[in-house]
């Protein structure tokens, strides 16, 4: 077709269409980079947000629920479930050493080994021996790299994993692991490592909680305990790392009076408080004739899905298992149903919905703004094509004289716009891919040579700029670039098609 020949020739012999292609390239690259970085940020946020909460959580806040061992056993027997772990979540006060007052914190009581199976918790422990420095720590300033302290850090890691430390007497005692930002004891450095202002592992802190009874009423005894600090964790979400304390499950159960306790069976209660021994005549308090064991309680069961099972499927399976559990224990303690708010069964996404929705909205807003900015490409292509159609008026007249129709002439210019869109979008996609793949080295180069550090880890809570190149997003953006170019060429194409061939031939 003659249009293909002319498009090829116009494209390679003129500077103006290359400028239009450059505009399309810049716009597509800009939108794609922004979308990829924001998308990477969202993914990082979601991954961080699910770090310590498993795929699905079954929770009964406040009073909690008993017989959780049976629930976990039932859950782990389900083919969709990889592992499950008990957890208590509540609030408390933390008095840190050298601190002027207590801090309000979220306290999570966890069982180290099973918590690790569900959440890969050990990977979040900060103080551990390191062989390789963090990507930006070229000078190896991270104290974890110190060969002299390997043993010490290995001990902190082991103690953090089990939430068990040694007392001064050498006995194993329940310990706690603090979020790395709790109390501001660790100073985040520009390279991403932490410099401890006061090195807390090995020290102790005082934890105070307010226990609730089995009916969810406050027990008027504040429970306070001094616990050793085993390590710090870093989930990647500042809000969690600045406000959360992990404590060994049995320690928190005792503090909150949620451990297994002996209970009086009301049916065996004596009629009077005291009784007199007929043989000796001595009066004594009546002891209950029979007791039973009130089972320990927790507030959450966290569940991890088997590979290939999505969170929504797992949630549905958890609901089914919980219903069976509820039926089995109806006579024991009447567990609340999964519907109606008594027990909440939520995926990690549901739990982080507020955060995720906010970032998703932010992404759409930014894309909308950049999309509007990219509309300039449409007008730029329109202006360039308008000028080119004027310049090529005589060519249009010649084509009409040799038999080209109006539609054929219009298609020539639309095709030309399409070619510029394809070239610009392809170049834009390649540029974006190149920048996204090297965004951190580019950023570091800017910092090193021009002293421009846009994402400072001391300010932002990530060491590296997140990015995620997704082929589908790239296809959408590149198709948008092509469409924008064709849209820009539309009006000049109509102008060319409507041109009077006689006037066109006489054009000077």
């Amino acid at each position, binding site marked *: *077709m003659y249009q293909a020949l*002319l498009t090829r020739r116009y494209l390679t012999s003129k500077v103006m269409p290359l400028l239009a292609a450059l505009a399309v390239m810049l716009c597509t690259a800009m939108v794609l980079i922004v979308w990829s970085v924001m998308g990477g940020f969202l993914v990082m946020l979601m991954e961080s947000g699910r770090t310590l909460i498993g795929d699905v959580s079954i929770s009964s806040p406040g009073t909690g629920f008993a017989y959780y061992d049976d629930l976990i056993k039932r859950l782990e027997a389900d083919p969709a479930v990889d592992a499950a772990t008990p957890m208590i979540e509540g609030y408390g006060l933390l008095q840190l050493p050298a601190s002027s007052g207590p801090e309000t914190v979220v306290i999570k009581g966890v069982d180290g080994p099973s918590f690790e199976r569900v959440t890969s918790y050990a990977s979040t422990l900060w103080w551990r021996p390191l062989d390789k420095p963090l990507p930006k720590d070229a000078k190896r300033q991270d104290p974890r790299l110190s060969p002299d302290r390997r043993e010490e850090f290995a001990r902190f890691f082991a103690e953090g994993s089990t939430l068990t430390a040694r007392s001064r007497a050498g006995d194993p005692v329940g310990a706690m692991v603090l979020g790395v930002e709790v109390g501001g004891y660790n100073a985040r450095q520009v390279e991403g490592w932490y410099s401890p202002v006061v090195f807390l592992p090995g020290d102790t802190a005082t934890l105070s909680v307010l226990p609730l009874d089995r009916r969810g009423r406050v027990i008027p005894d504040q429970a306070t305990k001094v616990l050793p600090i085993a390590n710090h964790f870093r989930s990647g979400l500042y809000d969690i790392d600045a406000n959360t304390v992990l404590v060994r499950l049995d320690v928190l159960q005792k503090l909150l009076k949620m451990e297994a306790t002996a209970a009086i069976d009301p049916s065996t209660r004596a009629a009077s408080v005291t009784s007199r021994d007929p043989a000796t005549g001595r009066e004594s308090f009546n002891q209950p004739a029979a007791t039973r064991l009130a089972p320990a309680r927790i507030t959450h069961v966290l569940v991890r899905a088997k590979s290939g099972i999505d969170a929504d499927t797992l949630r549905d399976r958890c609901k089914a298992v919980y219903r069976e559990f509820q039926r089995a224990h109806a006579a024991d303690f009447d567990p609340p149903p999964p519907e109606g708010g008594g027990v909440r069964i939520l995926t990690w996404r549901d739990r982080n919905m507020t955060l995720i929705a906010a970032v998703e909205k932010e992404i759409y807003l930014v894309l909308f703004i950049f999309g509007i900015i990219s509309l300039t490409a449409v007008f730029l292509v329109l202006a360039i094509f308008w000028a080119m159609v004027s310049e090529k008026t005589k060519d249009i007249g*010649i084509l*009409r*004289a*040799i*038999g080209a129709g*109006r539609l054929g002439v219009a298609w020539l210019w639309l095709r030309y716009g399409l070619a510029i869109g394809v070239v610009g979008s392809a170049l834009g996609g390649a540029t974006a891919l190149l920048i996204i793949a090297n965004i951190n080295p580019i950023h570091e180069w800017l910092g090193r040579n021009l002293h421009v550090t846009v994402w400072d880890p001391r300010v932002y809570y990530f060491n590296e700029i997140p990015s995620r190149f997704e082929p589908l997003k790239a296809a959408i953006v590149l198709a948008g670039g092509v469409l924008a170019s064709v849209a820009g060429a539309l009006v000049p194409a109509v102008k060319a098609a409507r041109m009077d061939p006689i006037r066109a031939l006489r054009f000077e």
Partner: protein
Amino acid sequence: MPLITITGLKKTYRLGRVDVPVLRGVDLSIAPGEWVAVLGASGSGKSTLLHLMGGLDRPDRQRGSGGAGGEIVFEGRSLADRSPRDLDRFRAKSVGFVFQFYHLLPELTVLENVGIAGMVLHRRRGRFRAERVGDRARALLAAFGLEHRLAHRPAELSGGERQRVAIARALVNEPMALLADEPTGNLDRATGQRILDAVSAWRAKGGQTIVMVTHDPEVAARADRVVRLEDGRVVGG
């Protein structure tokens, strides 16, 4: 039966608020294979007549055969009865235009400039047609002595060479009529004569009808018949 019959052809252009009648009722009949020269002064309407004959323009208020603007019948069919698409095909297939200022496409090579007319006609008819068009373009250019210029751009050619390329383009689809608008008007006398010799030789082989507009009596003398256009009307021939 004549190839072209023109009856009462009128064309008026509007310049601002003023109507300027260019053709005031032209009657003309041209036989197949005839070479007709249309002679007239500048502004006499020669080019307008040629554009109307080639379907590039429409007569005044033409609404079907025999309308107020007159009629052009080509090979027994009125141009007024043709749809715009039909007229495009008519320009591509049945007539070939040659202009005074060559009107070649500057980005294309000599071969492409000739071949593009074939590409326009055979839009979607596959590779076979395209190859045939290419072969025919090469043959024509060789016949006009331009076989060594195939890959050159128009800017690299002399005026005479450009006009020969333009003629080759006009002839590549083997039209029934060649409509030439002052084809030697921009050339020196000797070059102009060589161009006319080439056209004449080609006509001798192919038997094309030629309508050549000129203001040069010497050029007109090469034609079988000379028609004079004065004040928008045919006054001789």
